[in-house]
């Protein structure tokens, strides 16, 4: 079976000479179909850069990334992934519904169908009452939910999510986590998820990748062997706390390293 995402010795250097920044160095990563992989690490360790390489928004300086056995470029043309950015990035002249349906519009799907799908997606993120609102009429957290609905609207086989829940309050965040897990189970999507929250990474993932900065490297890979499906009792599980401690120690080891 081909990996959904495979990075083979991928490096990314920004700039050159004395200003060169090694955002990624010799990254090897294999993500199997249906996995939920979280990337965690200090700010500037190259998490977003890794997502952008996989999403064909930038080309790596070295190494071979593959997505569904294809080049990231081909995978992008095949619309294999939906992206959720750190900022919601809604188009402010479009209503919420039109924003959610934007990918479908670009794919040439006709209006009644994309409106129907868009409304279903808005229900999913509990914004069904806001279809004809404009982005500026929504709070930051609501805008981010719209952007998640937009990424899901065309049912991509891979979700690349860059701190999607960073702007949400704790309650909404937990609800969105449950929704995301439900969607992930139902649609058999593969998720690559960037977060700064250890608990979130452990709760959601099947695997947690810990990265260190300058140069951006993978320093630890932790399998999360919590029972599926995850739910409210997961957070009370003894193993949950053990894994959190495990990830925290991996992160602390990075900080203790001499810079």
């Amino acid at each position, binding site marked *: 079976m081909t990996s959904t995402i495979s990075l083979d010795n991928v490096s990314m250097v920004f700039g050159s000479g004395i200003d060169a920044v090694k955002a990624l160095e010799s990254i090897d990563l294999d993500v199997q179909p249906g996995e939920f992989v979280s990337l965690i690490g200090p700010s500037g360790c190259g998490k977003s850069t890794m997502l952008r390489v996989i*999403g*064909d*928004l930038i080309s790596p300086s070295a190494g071979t990334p593959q997505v569904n056995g294809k080049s990231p470029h081909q995978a*992008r*043309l*095949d*619309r294999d*992934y*939906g*992206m959720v*950015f750190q*900022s*919601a*990035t*809604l*188009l*402010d*002249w479009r209503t919420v519904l039109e924003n959610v349906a*934007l*990918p479908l*519009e*670009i*794919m040439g799907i006709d209006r009644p169908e994309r409106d129907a799908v868009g409304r279903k997606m808005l229900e999913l993120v509990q914004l069904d009452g806001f279809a004809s609102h*404009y*982005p*500026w009429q*929504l709070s930051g957290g609501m*805008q981010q939910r719209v952007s998640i609905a937009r990424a899901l609207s*065309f049912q991509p086989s891979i979700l690349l999510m860059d701190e999607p829940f960073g702007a949400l309050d704790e309650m909404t965040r937990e609800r969105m986590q449950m929704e995301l897990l439900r969607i992930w189970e139902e649609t058999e999507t593969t998720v690559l998820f960037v977060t700064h929250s250890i608990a979130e990474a452990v709760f959601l993932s099947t695997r947690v990748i810990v990265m260190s900065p300058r140069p951006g490297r993978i320093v630890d890979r932790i399998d999360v062997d919590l029972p599926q499906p995850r739910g409210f009792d997961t957070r009370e599980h003894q193993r949950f706390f053990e894994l959190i401690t495990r990830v925290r120690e991996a992160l602390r080891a990075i900080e203790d390293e001499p810079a």
Partner: protein
Amino acid sequence: MNHRTRSILSFLGIVASLAVVWEAYKWMGQTTGGTWPSTSVRLPVRTNNRSMPHLWDIAQSLFQPARRGGEDILLVILLRAGWFTFRSAVGGFVVGSAFGFGLGILFVRSSVAERGLMPYVVASQTVPVIALAPILVIWGGKLGLPQAVQVAVIAAYLAFFPVAINTLRGLRSPAATATELLRSYAASPSQQLWKLQVPAALPYLFPALKIAATASIIGAIVGELPAGLSRGLGRAILGFASSFSSAPEKLFASVAVSALVGILFVGLVALVERSVVPATRRVTVDAERPLA
């Protein structure tokens, strides 16, 4: 009081204060004998009835026959001339704006075109229209273009520039993440253009269209002279300028009507803007507009 009545009232207020300043300055000059009060420093503009007619004399002249024994009052003559000029200006505005918009799209698509052509686009605006108009008229005449079309071409020549510059700026305004978003959906270049760049450019486009509207009026007025058109404002202004010493208020009246035509044109553009660009997006062009 709603926004609209407030803006109308403030406009009328400004007009009224300008009128008061005009008459007060004139009165001061008449009282002091043409100097600043208690000095011997001369006023920059003379205040006699020739240099600065009373506003009521200007207004009155509008309702008197333009020529001794003529049938039509000055206002009718000027409005007719204004309408004539306005039509060529609109023609030039439409053609020039469309050309400027197309140029903006060309430049955003091809940096080679931008680097190669932009210097000429900028240089074109440093040639005074007074010098250029006769040349365009001669060429237009050779090509057999009607005079009104020649005038429209001159108006278009002035109108296209602000539109091209601001279109380019607006097309470049989307945040990098928005461009990446469309890229991640494998949007084609033309989808990028029409679904992201053009909508994002609209708030930048309309201020340019307002400038283009006034520029096209100026272009039409100036263009009428070498084109030999006698029915527009250009000829009227020139005629009243030559009889300035005997009837200065007619020149001022024709200037006022020209300004009125320009204001109405800009108002028309603003009306369209109102229905195309929602108020929340009508931000000042100089402010960076963060994406939601």
